[in-house]
Structure formats: C-alpha cells, structure tokens
C-alpha cells in the first residue's frame, strides 16, 4: 500500500528532459533574434521607442477629422478598383483550370509535367503583387491595365495551388469508374471531377476575390490604377484629412465585400 502511494506521489515530469532542453534553446534563439531585429529596426529612428509613442498621438491627431467633402471624387476610383479586382479574378479563375489540373498529382500522372507546373506556380507565388505591379507599370505605362495584369498573375498562383489541393483530395472512385467504362480524359474530368469540386471552386474564387480587393486598393501607390493613386497624392501633399477619408472608404469597402463574400461562401459549402 505504501509503495503504491509513493509511486503516485512522485510527480512524473510532463515532458522528457531532452524536449525541455530543446525547447529552452529554441526559446532563447528566437528571443535573441527578436531582440536583435528590434534593435536593428529601431536603429535609425529619431528619439527611440519612447519618443515615437509620444509623437504618434500628436501625428495621428492630424488625420482627424476626416474631410468627407471629397467623397464624390473618391467614388469613381473606388469603383474602378473593384472593377479591376473583378476582371482580374475572372481571368485568373479561367486560366487556373488547366493549371490546377496539371498540378494535381492524381490527374496528371505524367510526373515531369506535374513537377514543371508545380515549380512554375511556386516561383510565381514568391513575387509580391506590388512588385509585379511595379514591373508591369514599367512595361505598359501607368494605368489600369498593368494593375489588372499584376492582380491576375498574382492571384493565379494562389488560386491554382488551392484548387489543385482540392482536386487532389477528391474521391477517385467515380473517376476510375468513368475510365473503366470508356470515358476519355475530358469526359472523366467533366462528368466526375467537375461536380465534385464545383462548390469549393466557387468558394475559393470568392476568397481570392477578397484578397484581390485588398491588393487592388494599394496598387495605385505605384501607378497601377485605382483608389491608391488618390491616396498617394493626398499623402504627398500632406493633406491628412483627405487621406483619412480615402482610408475610411477603403476600410468600409473591404469590410462590406468580405461580409458579403463570407455569407455567399457559407451558403455554398
């Protein structure tokens, strides 16, 4: 009886000693890099962290009250921004279909082709949207067109990856049954793959549309059309109340579109 009690009393360590040491080391490494990054990034800041916090309040105050008189002037370019996102999402959704099929392991059984499209999409995804916009503006000049192109290329990378993952997780039995009864590649895809992924496809396209809306509002900062252009101008003139109005409009638009898209996606799945 007594031996049993002492066994129960002896507290077993929850984690083995080796894990504890590992976690401690990782913790200190992360903390070290963090401290170093904080010092590095604050290096060329005048007055240090304390000065900045005090400064923040007085500067933020300049943004208020926002000047709502310029709302009609913003309206057009905000609509242009949304249109850019719509067009880019549509083109990306169409182009993504062959790419996603080619980069899904269970449909594209020809390995080299699969690896080629995978690598291509991975490379495409590493380049940030605004960098693409900068390059396209250099290539096509200032305007809406480079913006749409940048959004299309950028969202194509994300969408193709997400959809190829969806394709990889479908039930393969209907596809095999189709193939066994003599359906060709396109018939197999159309009659047994498409019905399985259609809801997810729509949901992912809406999700990418949300991403595109958020990306397109800032594209104008580099001259690629939309509401970012106005924001950039107002900031350069130090006209903070006007800039604040633009920011509030962007904020409201993103919130509304996200809400609608969320509701639609909930209804779909």
């Amino acid at each position: 009886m007594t031996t049993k009690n002492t066994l129960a009393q002896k507290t077993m360590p929850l984690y083995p000693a080796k894990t504890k040491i590992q976690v401690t080391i990782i913790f200190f490494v992360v903390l070290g890099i963090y401290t170093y990054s904080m010092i590095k990034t604050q290096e060329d800041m005048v007055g240090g962290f304390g000065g900045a916090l005090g400064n923040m309040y007085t500067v933020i105050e300049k943004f208020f009250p926002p000047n709502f008189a310029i709302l009609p002037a913003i309206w057009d370019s905000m609509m242009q921004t949304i249109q850019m996102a719509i067009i880019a999402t549509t083109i990306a959704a169409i182009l993504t279909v062959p790419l996603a099929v080619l980069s899904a392991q269970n449909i594209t059984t020809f390995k080299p082709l699969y690896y080629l499209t995978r690598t291509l999409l991975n490379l495409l995804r590493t380049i940030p949207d605004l960098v693409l916009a900068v390059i396209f503006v250099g290539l096509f000049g200032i305007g809406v067109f480079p913006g749409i192109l940048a959004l299309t290329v950028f969202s194509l990378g994300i969408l193709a990856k997400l959809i190829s993952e969806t394709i990889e997780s479908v039930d393969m039995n209907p596809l095999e049954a189709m193939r066994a009864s003599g359906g060709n590649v396109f018939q197999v895809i159309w009659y047994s793959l498409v019905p399985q992924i259609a809801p997810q496809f729509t949901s992912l396209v809406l999700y990418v549309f949300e991403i595109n809306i958020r990306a397109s509002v800032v594209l104008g900062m580099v001259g690629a059309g939309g509401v970012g252009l106005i924001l950039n101008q107002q900031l350069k003139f130090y006209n903070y109340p006007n800039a604040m109005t633009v920011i509030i409009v962007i904020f409201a638009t993103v919130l509304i579109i996200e809400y609608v898209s969320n509701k639609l996606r909930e209804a779909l799945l």
Partner: protein
Amino acid sequence: MEKLQLPPKPEKSALKKIRAVIILILVIALYVWTFTSINIDWGRAIERSISNFHRVVPKLFSPDWAVAGKVGEAMLETIFIAFAGSLMAAILAVPLSFLAAQNMMGGKVGSTIGKWILSAIRAFPDLILAILFVVAVGPNAFAGVLAIAIGSTGMLGKMFSEIIESIDMEVVQAMEANGANKIQILFYGVIPQITPEFLSYAIYRFEVDIRASSILGIVGAGGIGTMIIFASSNRNWNEMGMILLAIVIVVTVIDFASAKIRRKIV
C-alpha cells in the same frame, strides 16, 4: 436492343430555380457594369509595351551583381522586420483569440466583440497600416515592424480562435468535474491542445510576412521595398532583376524551411 435511358433528374423546387435565376442576373449585371465602365487604353498599353519590351524584360533576367551586397543588406532588414512583426503579432493575437473563441472566457457577447475587433483589423491592407505608422513614427524600419505586427494580429487572431474553438472540450469538462480551477484548466487542459497548431500558424504567418514586408518600403517603411521603388523610378531594370532574384530565393528558402518545421511540430 433495348434503348438505354438515363434515370430522371430530381425535380428542383420553384424557389431554388428562382434563386438561381436571380443570382445569374446579378452576376451578369455585375459583369456588364464592370466591362462597360472600365476604360483600358489598349492602344497606349500595346504601343508602350512594344517600345519598352526589349528595354525591360531581358534586363530583368540579367541581374546586376554589383548591387548584390546592397540588396542582401536590404533583404536582411526585410527578414528582421518580418520576424519582429510576426512574433509581436503572435503574442498580441493570443489574448484576442481567447476573447473571440466561443468556448472560452467571453461567451457569446465577448466572442462577437472579439471577432469584430479582429475583422476590423483585417480590413486594413498592410500597406495602409504602414502609411499610418510611417506618419506616426517616421520613415524607418520600425514603422514596418508595427505595420506587420498589427496587420498579422488580425489574421492570426482569427486562426487562433478557430483552433481554440475546435479543441476537445471533454478534457476541460473532466478537469472541471475534478475541481480544477481556471488557471489549472488553462495550463493542463487547453494549452497542451493548442500549442502545436498555434506555433504552426505563427510560423506560416512569418512566411506570409516576408512577402508583405518586402513591399513596405514603397511607402518608406524600410526593407527591400525602398530599393524597388528607386530601381523602378530610375528605370534600372538590371538592379530590379537582382532584387527579384533575392526575393525569390529568400521566400523559397523560408517557405521550404517553415514547411519542414511545421511538419515536425504538428
């Protein structure tokens, strides 16, 4: 031979049909509105691209190795911004996610408030936050850190709260039944369940933040974006090629490493 026939399709209710038609009309209206009111200057875009093509595209693929050192430095700063920002966000997101999760402290009301706060933060694009912080703390890398920290908090908080909502509540109930207090439940019932996934999402967010922080310099918030904007306004496409190469390499390496680490954790 008997004629083969497909089985009859199930009848759709009238309400569903009407709904489908309404959605179709709305979508068509949206597209009509989009394509009639947007004006793309095709002529100019084509003309410009023809005259610019040989000046831009070949140069992008022949990076200027002379600036490699400078680009490397700026890229390192970008990594620092992303690291400091995402770690700050990971810490800030924890209390907010506990507030937003329905099964934790807040209950229905708290959860709604928490979710509203998080989606309000998420509605600001990173670059807009960067603009605000550049005005507040001056054009330096720390403005970028703050922008990344706040921007990522919105997304991480949402992910974290979803993880908390999906934990096994039976463990918590068993502990409650045994008379454990709130702190004990938190440390022995909740935290062991959520730690691996929290870490995994925080590391994933670092991947995303590397990409985000590489463009913050466009508004003056430090990192490699500053060089991007200079290279594009000087039309120095060789330098741009070098910057692109640096971004592609760093992002690929970090994606790869983070995927490895995450697979180990979960």
